């Protein structure tokens, strides 16, 4: 999974795959996303739910399978177009490399969370007088 693009139906079933993602994802066509990405439901599910709820594009960054992953979800009719881009790998070699890469990844996750909150702020109840 370096960069993957696919289309999900309402039940989070993979119904279409980008040409460049075919080799990795095609065997999972017609199967739930969670078969392709085990243990990802608690991480990706809320992003998919939010895109459906706001009926608009949602971006997030998650940590999954040793990488920070940028997620972009765009509603397309009744489906969701999902794009996943791997960003920073957790460097497991030594405790020092692990700590350093973990700090980078946590900073990426925090920065994305900060941007998401900033975007939501004007519309959030807390922003009201």
């Amino acid at each position: 999974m370096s960069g993957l693009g696919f289309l999900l139906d309402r039940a989070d079933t993979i119904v279409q795959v980008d040409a460049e993602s075919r080799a990795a994802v095609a065997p999972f066509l017609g199967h739930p996303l969670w078969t392709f990405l085990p243990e990802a439901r608690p991480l990706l599910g809320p992003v998919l739910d939010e895109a459906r709820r706001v009926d608009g594009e949602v971006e997030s960054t998650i940590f999954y399978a040793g990488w920070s992953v940028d997620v972009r979800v765009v509603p397309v009719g009744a489906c969701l177009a999902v794009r996943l881009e791997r960003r920073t790998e957790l460097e497991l070699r030594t405790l020092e490399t692990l700590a350093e890469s973990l700090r980078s990844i946590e900073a990426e996750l925090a920065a994305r969370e900060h941007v998401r909150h900033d975007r939501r702020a004007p519309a959030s109840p807390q922003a009201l007088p």
Partner: protein
Amino acid sequence: MAVAVEAAPYVVLDDEYRVVETSWPADAAVGPLRGQHLLDFFPGSRPLFLPYLEEAQRTRRIVKFAQYFEGHVAEIGIFPGARGLTLVWERLCTLDVMTMDGLRASLRDALETLRAREDALHREVVRSSLRVVEGGR
């Protein structure tokens, strides 16, 4: 009745720390490195392992330690012998990198395991030193 015997992975190194022999469980990982310097193939491993190899070579005594490397905590034993240094290892725990929660929990376990094993090995060294001081009783 057939009995399955699990052989421990081991590697035998010569005086230059080149791989001269591997057990079959270690073959997949280090078998192709026969004739090569073991630590050259694992970047970052030199400061973690070389002092222990040198200690075993210098003292000709068994050296045991616990170490984290490449996502695993392992207990490693270095046994000096006529063929060279035999390295035996046992994986104690492995990091779970699937999710951040899993990573944090497994990292906590790994660090605790590392500390506990180091303490236990240190106590073992102290006990065996005391036995020597007390005349092998």
